[in-house]
């Protein structure tokens, strides 16, 4: 009696097919997450390392008695003209080279700031400079990319930026043990640069940090107080409805429109300085506010009315009941909402492009009124650059950005786990 008829078999087959479709869909989404992360990580991790090449520098050619360096101030050393001296130090790697063109090519396997690096070594070790020191200089981007295997050596020479002879020099240096692959600290501390091997995310990390702090300072108090007003005090009338509709709509307005607001009002009417974390922060705050307000209201709503009644019944005013009991209980939810809003703001790019936070900024900003970039904008800027070296830098910046986002979200989850009360 319960035998499967032919019809039922067909139906069960179609059931199987449907399930397979569903599983394909969900695997597609999951695999994409995996591919994206693998792709970014595999191309980005190498940016945390850089190639350096050792040269021998004879500092006694600058001052015969190298102990005298100790008496010089950093400024004085910085003002020395060591340009020719530095060049000569590099030439000394291959004393046989006579041809000027070849000499030039040799110089080009080093990054452009070799003179400065030689000076900085001197400043750092001025107390006990030996006559001849081994100084590790940053290799140029072309060499760096070859070393990292990102740049094919087997292309015909005319299609490569790096010439055969330079590769020859490099191989000799590597065989002599002069090439060292080190952790790229300047990448984390320096500002942007036109030379990929010298470019760092320090400036944009600080820029992002200053922007996010501005967002926090502005949107956290305003968002929470607005939510408290709407949830606890507002009489239900047309005006309150209007505010609510506004907030829900703002949550769905495309981010670039907030950029237009920033450009049209904050820059042009209020005249605040362009390209600064202050303006970026203000624009992103306006964007984050709805998220915070909606989350805070939800957690205020979750506080049971009996708590308010308990406080009112002992004679607290409404304000006291709300501020002493309801708001502290809703705080974990409000904080979680704020952190999620901050994470959104941290990853936001489009509005910042319009208020000029795309400027090329070499200096690490020191206040919210300095021109600066931010991490996502840095990603955009470098992604648009042609040099091969920026690709790994872009991926590495994304890794840092994702890292910060994961930290923020983790904090939100922890707060929720630890403090949230179930009613």
């Amino acid at each position: 009696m319960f035998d499967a008829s032919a019809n039922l078999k067909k139906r069960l087959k179609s059931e199987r097919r449907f399930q397979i479709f569903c599983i394909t869909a969900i695997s597609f989404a999951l695999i994409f997450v995996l591919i994206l992360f693998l792709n970014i990580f595999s191309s980005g991790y190498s940016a945390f390392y850089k190639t350096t090449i050792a040269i021998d520098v004879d500092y006694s050619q600058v001052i015969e008695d190298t102990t005298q360096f100790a008496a010089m101030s950093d400024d004085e050393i910085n003002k020395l003209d060591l340009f020719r001296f530095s060049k000569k130090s590099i030439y000394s790697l291959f004393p046989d080279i006579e041809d000027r063109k070849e000499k030039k090519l040799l110089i080009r396997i080093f990054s452009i700031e070799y003179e400065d690096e030689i000076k900085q070594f001197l400043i750092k070790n001025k107390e006990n400079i030996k006559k001849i020191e081994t100084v590790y200089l940053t290799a140029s981007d072309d060499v760096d990319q070859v070393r990292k295997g990102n740049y094919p050596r087997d292309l015909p020479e005319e299609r490569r930026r790096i010439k055969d002879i330079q590769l020859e020099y490099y191989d000799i240096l590597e065989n002599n043990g002069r090439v060292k692959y080190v952790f790229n600290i300047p990448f984390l501390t320096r500002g942007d640069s036109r030379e990929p091997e010298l470019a760092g995310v320090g400036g944009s990390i600080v820029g992002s940090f200053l922007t996010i702090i501005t967002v926090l300072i502005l949107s956290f108090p305003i968002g929470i107080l607005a939510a408290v007003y709407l949830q606890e005090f507002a009489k239900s009338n047309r005006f309150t409805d209007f505010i609510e509709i506004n907030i829900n709509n703002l949550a769905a307005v495309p981010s670039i429109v907030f950029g237009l607001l920033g450009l049209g009002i904050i820059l042009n009417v209020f005249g605040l300085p362009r390209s600064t974390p202050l303006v970026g922060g203000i624009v992103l705050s306006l964007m984050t506010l709805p998220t915070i307000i909606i989350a805070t209201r939800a957690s205020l709503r979750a506080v049971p009315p009996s708590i308010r009644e308990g406080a009112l019944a002992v004679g607290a005013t409404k304000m006291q009941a709300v501020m002493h009991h309801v708001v502290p209980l809703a705080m974990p939810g409000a904080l979680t909402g704020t952190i999620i809003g901050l994470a959104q703001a941290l990853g936001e790019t489009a509005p910042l492009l319009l208020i000029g936070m795309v400027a090329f900024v070499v200096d690490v900003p020191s206040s919210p009124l300095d021109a600066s970039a931010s991490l996502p904008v840095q990603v955009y800027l470098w992604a648009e650059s042609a040099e091969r070296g920026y690709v790994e830098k872009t991926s590495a910046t994304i890794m840092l950005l994702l890292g910060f986002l994961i930290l923020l979200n983790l904090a939100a989850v922890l707060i929720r786990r630890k403090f949230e009360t179930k009613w």
Partner: protein
Amino acid sequence: MGLFLILLVLTIGAFGFLIGRLKAIKLRSASQKKITSLNHYYGYYIAIFAIVPSLLVFLAITAFQGYIVEVYVLSDFIDLNPNLLASDKNLLLAQIVNTSKGIELFDEISPLVTDAVDKYIYIEELIDTLTYVIVLSVAGLLSLVAYVKIKSNLDSRKFVESFLLILFFTCSLVAIMTTVGIIFSLLFQTLKFFSQVPITDFLFGLNWSPQRVFVRDSGDLDTRDLQNAFGAIPLFAGTFLIAFIAMCVAIPVGLMTAIYLAEYASPNLRDWAKPIIEILAGIPTVVYGFFAALTVAPIVRDLGQNAGFTVSSESALAAGFVMGIMIIPFVSSLSDDVINSVPQSLREGSYAMGATKSETIRKVLLPAALPGIIGSFLLAVSRAIGETMIVVMAAGLAAKLTANPFDAATTITTQIVVILIGDQEFDSPKTQAAFALGLTLFIVTLLLNFIALQVVKKYTERYD
């Protein structure tokens, strides 16, 4: 200097708090009877009087300072040339400010400028001093008034609480002010734009090439240049094309994912699969843009070329595909909610008749949840239309009217960024065009959201 003044005012406020509290304590012990409010409310009473009005005065002065300085410093120039343009005024002012700081960008400085520099330094100092005097005396005087007003029958709690309520209310107005700000900034520039370019040209024109206007000095544009430069149809078409491709990816994948998670997946699987899919929503869009431009676009090009198509390296397909991936979690989590809110009794009714799970889903659940699901699609479309970074980085920049997904297409958001990135000339029709595009975008997304929310609301009401 502003920061220091604010700190001073706050210090006065803190001091006011202490003396207010002290007076309340004294009153309490002197009168031996109950006074209306707790001691610290009297402290806050003075603090509010000290801080709030003086800070408002400070804000007002700061707001008008620029204007006053400009009028005073440039008075001589305006006497000479009453029709000085706004841009020239700004240039002059910048020169004067720079010179006063010792930065000399110009070889020759006219005596008029030297005079103005002196005037500038004088007025800046004067205003600074006056600001200090006025703000601090407002804070001091009002604290004193508040101190005198404290009596045992003063209901300071009521005052403090009313103040807080007004403060809270003001905060909730920020949302309205933001909307007003958006509409004002968009509308203002858009109206200027339409005064030069007819609205019909913008909405129905087939040719978008604002750079034509850009190369000319905006001062002597004639109408010929403006004709045929601002037809937004190619942008609308490109936006639609890319959003359509995105929805082709996001809707089936998102919906199937939602169905699987809601109906088939074990709670265990659901617990870890859902957050992973939500990661897709948390990844910054600039990351998708980078991925689309650098990884997906070349793959699409190679695949297309192998199949015998000519594929642009910035194809609409690549951008749309990646955008679709980004939108998956929106579709799936919204649809998930909707499917979950279908009452269990409907499912049971279907199972009781011997239907299989997929039959139940297709014949009972989806029809029942359809309005809600459509609502979630609409929200996703609005998201796709407003998305910026993916298309800026992976879609084309040149406007071309095409329906071919292998071709490069440009979008509204891309053009806004292309026009406004870097330095803008504020009075050129090109810049204003970007605001007109922004207004279009704002209206379209607002409508989509409004409709979507109405649909979802109607739907949830049905099962409440």
